[in-house]
């Protein structure tokens, strides 16, 4: 065996060793993504168990909701009709909130039924939140309803206001969740309060933004006004050129008419 051949064999052995080592990694168990979720509540009724997850503790603003529905001990329903109704009980009256109902199929990532709602005010002396979860098992036709108590923490990511057209709107900041210096993807939602229990998404208005640094007396340039992407979502880009206190002004417009101006205050580290 000459030197070249011995070198080739050595390289092959090293390469196979590397594959074996990486193969060991492949055999390790992937963590369940659900482990990253925050379990909000688990409730059972009849033969069904419903578990409600959120991505983080519920606070005023946009909150993702995930549902797992089991029939019996381990039979996870592959499909279910779930309707969520957020309900704020304020003694004298109650009201709901904007909500995105879960789809009938489990999502690809968590293998859960995903939806969302906007908590428009915090829990506290003013009132308390419940999620009324109505579930129908399409295989058995069984329907049931579960109330889940939710504690909503305070935040400043929701603006509720009455615009010049006498309509009451709910503007919610969704992204960036943690604004950074530079260019940020901006996502907000807009809903109209049609009644105490109805908050349809608004897609036919326009929104203009103006980031501003009050202490410096300037803003940032080349921002993209959020445009409607449907279902009440508006997407754009907001730029921050330094850390510190920022205020992002939002002007709600109907055509050329300014309906209302509000803002969100942010602190960038």
């Amino acid at each position, binding site marked *: 065996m000459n030197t070249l051949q011995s070198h080739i064999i050595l390289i092959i052995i090293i390469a196979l060793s590397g594959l074996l080592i990486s193969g060991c990694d492949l055999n390790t168990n992937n963590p369940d993504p659900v482990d990253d979720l925050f379990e909000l509540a688990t409730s059972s009724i009849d033969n069904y168990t419903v578990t409600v997850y959120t991505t983080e503790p519920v606070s005023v603003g946009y909150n993702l909701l995930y549902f797992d529905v089991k029939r019996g001990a381990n039979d996870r329903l592959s499909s279910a009709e779930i309707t969520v109704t957020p309900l704020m009980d304020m003694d004298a009256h109650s009201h709901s909130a904007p909500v995105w109902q879960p789809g009938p199929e489990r999502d690809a990532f968590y293998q859960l039924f995903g939806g969302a709602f906007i908590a428009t005010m915090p829990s506290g002396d003013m009132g308390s939140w419940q999620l009324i979860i109505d579930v129908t098992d399409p295989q058995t036709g069984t329907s049931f309803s579960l109330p889940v108590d939710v504690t909503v923490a305070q935040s400043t990511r929701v603006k509720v206001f009455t615009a010049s057209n006498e309509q009451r709107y709910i503007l919610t900041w969704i992204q960036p969740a943690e604004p*950074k210096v*530079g260019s940020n993807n901006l996502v907000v939602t807009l809903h109209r309060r049609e009644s105490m229990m109805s908050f349809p998404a608004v897609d036919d208005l326009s929104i203009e933004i103006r980031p501003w*640094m009050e202490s*410096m*007396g*300037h803003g940032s340039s080349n921002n993209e006004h959020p445009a409607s992407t449907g279902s009440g979502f508006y997407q754009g880009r907001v730029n921050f050129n330094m*850390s510190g206190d920022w205020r992002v002004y939002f002007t709600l417009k109907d055509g050329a008419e300014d309906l209302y101006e509000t803002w969100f205050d942010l602190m960038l580290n």
Partner: protein
Amino acid sequence: MPLSIHEAQLASRLSDIPLNIYATQQPQSHETPYASTPYHLNPDIRENRENPVMTLTALLSLLMLLWTGPLPSGPDTLSGTIYDAETLRPLHGAHIKGPNQQYATSSGTDGSFALVRPDCPCRILITMTGYQNREMDPALFTGTPVAVYLEPRTGLLSEVVIRSAPVPDASPRSYTNSSLESTEQFMQRLNGLSMIKRANYAWEPSLRGMSDSRVNVLIDGVTMVSACVDRMDPVTSYVETENLEKVDVSMGNISFENGNRPGGSVNLITARPGFDAGYYGEFDAGYQHNGNVQKYRVMSGYSNHRNALQVAFTLRDAGNFTAGGGERLGLSGYTKMNLKVDAGRDFAGGSRGWLTWIGDLALDAGYPALIMDTDKARSHLISYEHEWRNPGSLVSVLRVKPYHTRVDHWMSDYNRDVTTRDVMPGMYMPMFGKTRTTGIRLESTLISGRHLVRATMNLHRLDAFADMLMEPVDEQVSPMYLINIGDAVLNNAYVSADHSWLMSPAWSLNTGLALDLSGRTLNDPVAADLLTIEFPDASTGRLIAAANLKAGLQYQSDEAWGISLNMSGGSRLPSHIESYGYYIYNPLDDLFYFGNPGLKNEQSTQVNLSGYLNGDNRIYGLEASLFVNHIRNYIGGRATGDLFAAYTNYDAALYAGVEAAGYLNPWPSLGLTFGLARVYAQNLHLDEPLPMIPPLEAQFGLEWKVSLLTLAAQVRHAAAQRRIASATTLETPSEAFTVIGVRGTWNLHPNFQLRAEIENIADARYTEHTSPGNFPSPGRNAQIQILIRF
């Protein structure tokens, strides 16, 4: 451009043989390493006929013979032609002496000479004012005329070489400054050169109205980059003027040796030790009453024939100075220390090496015209230069110089009342900046007959970073942080060749080529993201290149008169601040600038016409230059809002001007000088004047020497500047002023000198137009200085 005076002078100091000889016939003695032989007469070289360099040598040598023409020769005659080693021009009036006056002659108007061969085993001496003496062995003269190149002599003190004139050594403006004035003072009265002073501390040269990135400022040929993004630490602030031996100024693209900027270049050349001085030293102390400025400098060294060591330390301390009329300007003082160490080694085989370190520290330097002050500025420059003399038949000098520089700059406004200012009121804004350059510079001088090529290569990497903290006085408001330059990395390669061809004793042709290549990027992702926001179509990482060409034709009728026409075309790469700066405050317009990574190169087309006239025995002399510099894609700021501006390419800008200077020496003891300069600069895109252009300026000087005493007076007048930019800056007009100064030097002893000076005798209050913020210049200022050599 011919070999620079700097090169020649430095060479003369470095070599034990300060004479550059080119023999047209193979020398019988190789006593001097400067002797070389055309290949067609040298059997050793003839074996390498396939070498294209050697072929070129042969052609050039043949041309040289054709141009030189027949000269008297013979076994009993020494004949040759004396040339300036820098310009390759024949030297008229050089003295060639044998052992006694029987063997003496002088060179004719074409530099040629013939001398009866001394009948003794002796040497001949060649001398000429302003050049190094040289002894030669008559055996070198073997019958064929010998070309002898004399090296210009180094001035005792600092010297400024201006390269806008057709022939520097014959031009009135190439005079070495007298020992009366500092380098700064001398530069300030040079036509076409203005000093931008943002405080009483650091000065920055402006050439023909151009400064900053349009002028390349080097220290000993080393690329050093300011760390402060607000230009509070120009490179000139990191070298002591007393340590300078020479300032090599190139106005416009006359020479590519020190870069290809449209404004030109300034190479600050520091003094280094020789190899035969033994122990030596200097002590220098000075005091200025205006601002209570104290300066102390001590320099000492030792050298023998092999090794040399020299150390120079300078300490300056200045308080607040008083402007003309009596207004005392707060925050105008500073403290500064500079240490320079040179170690040299003369190696066997004709090569030498110098290790140089320059360290500089400035503390509490106030900038009354700006909104910030320098808390601390620190720099290190370390370099090693190795030089070979005559490493090849064509190459007379080869230098290799690796270098590294580090500059750190801290500034803040903690000493200011920030609550009442217009810009960013209510917050402190400490800033930090740093630059690092690491590179290698190669220089080579090739001489063949009447052709001289000066080749330069400068490869360097620049790392730059700057950031800024904003601390509101109101503690309820969060502090803010900003990156001004986010780890910019620029890998630059610069290659140039300046070629001079002395076609006849009167006519010469200069051509040149320079190439710039720069690969640059921002390594900080946040900084890159921010610039991408401003310029979505530009990439922060890119490779850009620039090419430059020049050609010049010169005619010189001896030293009596001469004229030259130089043209050049080329481009300048955007600087790292123009490309990557972010939120850079500009005091000229109170705007914050964004760099633009997508900037195009500035394209410059220049024409320079110069002429001079000298009277007999240099009793009088005149010089004048006209120049036009048209710049396409001119880089400047364009306001993008009430607070912000961005660097952009304007369609075109035009610089044009005239400079004139003259002297009159009616008696040997009395000399008069005058000069004037005028620059017209217009932004052709906006149809408005370019900002910060010096007004018409005229100077008149008088110098009188009486025995050991020299007295001088200087009158400087600047006209009002009404041509101001309004669209791009908030420039304000400036008023005319006249200042008068007197100086005197008393050489009490060869080793003891006393200097005294009064600047601005009339205590006039005036403002240089190029000083931002209407920063007033010092009022009456009396100073005294002693210099002791040992």
